[in-house]
């Protein structure tokens, strides 16, 4: 049959739609691969620069991680360059953990208030305000830290006012909106009938919140806190502006100290590419990158555990 053959030929000819489909798939895949390439490039470049301290400058990893004196231009008593990153590592962790400890009760308390106690006020006032504050640039937090927090610390504790305490205050306010709004999301995901069932059994509202809602939302709340910690750990400018930038082991919360990010921001412009001073800074960046991967992993693990429950 002639007509059947004609029809078959027509149906088998590649249509414009089919050509567009291949084209579109290719374009969108290229875009996606571009992002993947960026990730690989960032990790690759930072890692290759970061390990140069150990491979070409022959600093031992242990000295780097445990050394307490940071002075990459100078050789220490043992004749090796002084690239002990411990002060910055301790500074970064201290400031991160402290700000998370302060922020968590406030954030979760506010989220509970928004979601369980006064959903009306929560939706009308708290939610828009927190969402807005999530978007406030970190330099603005840094500037307020510099003009309000540092002088206050100075007035109360003496000294310069710069240090871990000021940094913690700034980071606390900075991560508060993020952790609050993520905690609120976590609470919102708890099914309504959990609460109804608990209240129907005669539990008070607080018992319901404490024993049922918070427990059910635990993985989500933990994710929110870890997310806030990751943000605090990686924050550069706001911290750099109030911490005092002295690469010394912090001996008090109100003495000038340093974090990985603060040393990086102040240092990288003042060193020559390829020099030990510069390589050592890239090693700090590598630590930062590594920690960001660790935070990412923790969030994933919490997520997986949450799903298993």
């Amino acid at each position: 049959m002639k007509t059947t053959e004609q029809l078959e030929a027509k149906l088998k000819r590649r249509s414009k739609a089919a050509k567009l489909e291949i084209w579109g798939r290719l374009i969108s895949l290229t875009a996606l691969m571009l992002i993947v390439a960026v990730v690989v490039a960032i990790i690759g470049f930072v890692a290759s620069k970061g390990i140069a301290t150990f491979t070409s400058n022959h600093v031992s990893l242990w000295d780097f991680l445990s050394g307490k004196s940071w002075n990459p231009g100078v050789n220490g008593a043992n004749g090796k360059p002084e690239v002990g990153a411990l002060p910055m590592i301790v500074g970064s962790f201290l400031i991160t953990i402290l700000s998370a400890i302060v922020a968590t009760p406030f954030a979760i308390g506010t989220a509970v208030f928004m979601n369980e106690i006064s959903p009306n006020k929560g939706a009308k006032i708290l939610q828009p305000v927190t969402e807005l504050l999530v978007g406030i640039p970190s330099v603005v937090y840094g500037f307020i830290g510099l003009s309000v927090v540092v002088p206050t610390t100075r007035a109360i504790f003496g000294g310069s006012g710069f240090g871990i305490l000021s940094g913690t205050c700034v980071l606390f306010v900075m991560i508060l909106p993020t952790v609050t709004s993520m905690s609120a999301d976590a609470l919102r995901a708890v099914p309504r009938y959990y609460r109804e069932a608990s209240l129907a059994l005669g539990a008070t509202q607080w018992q319901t919140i404490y024993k049922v809602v918070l427990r059910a939302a635990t993985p989500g709340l933990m994710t929110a806190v870890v997310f806030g910690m990751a943000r605090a750990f990686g924050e550069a400018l706001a911290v750099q502006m109030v911490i005092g930038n002295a690469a010394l082991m912090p001996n008090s919360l109100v003495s000038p100290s340093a974090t990985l990010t603060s040393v990086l921001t102040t240092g990288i412009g003042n060193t020559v590419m390829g020099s030990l001073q510069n390589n050592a800074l890239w090693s700090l960046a590598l630590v930062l990158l590594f920690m960001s991967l660790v935070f990412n992993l923790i969030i994933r693990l919490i997520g997986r555990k949450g799903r298993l429950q």
Partner: protein
Amino acid sequence: MFVNNDVKNAMAMEERHVIKLSDPDHPVILSTEDLHVYYGKKEALFEGDLEFASNQITALIGPSGSGKSTYLRSLNRMNDRIATVTGKIMYRGVDINQPSIDVYEMRRRVGMVFQRPNPFAKSIYDNIAFALRLRGVTGKHKLDEIVETSLKQAALWDQVKDDLNKSALALSGGQAQRLCIARAIAIKPDILLLDEPASALDPVSTGQLEDTLLSLKEHYTIIIVTHNMQQAARISEYTAFFNQGRVLEYDTTSHIFTNPSVQVTSDYVSGNFG
């Protein structure tokens, strides 16, 4: 393969009754041979061997999960991404289930209307015109004409002719569904597949939709999946009864509803299960 009306020839394990068509006025336009559909490893349709008469309405009925929608969606390969479909789908003598077939060209001949009305977030006019424009139909005059004819065929023209530039999302359910039909017939398909098109509509809209379908069969071959047996009885010439992934009975609608050959069909159409 079942070749005749003789129930005794059916497989011993199961009563079946599937006719072959022989109406010279309405030759077979579409048929399936040994069609199987798998979702992953799970087989959802074991066998669907049917023939469809041109310019007639064929209804596919059966309980939920019986495979009728799966079967329908396989006919224009809407299941390609989510299921594996084996067997032949013969459309005017061409097997359209081959990989070498251009599915986009094929779907322009085998159109489909869905359970939930799905007008696009565009004006009523553009809902119909935009697919045509994409395929090179240009010229305002020509497009206007097609839009008008399609809307008239779908019995929607009188209600929307002054609102063609308004958003289609503002239409009522029944109107939206008729717009979807107009959209489907604007590209002049041969066959129109409808997947429970009236299930989201109220009785009045359903009635109007049925009238529309009856008037459309002059130009199109219609295959409709429906839950509503009265609807099948009202509008179709042929009816296929699906159960548990198989076609149990296929015959003229009057035969199925008045004198079914298979006990299960009889139970179903008389409302004893399903």
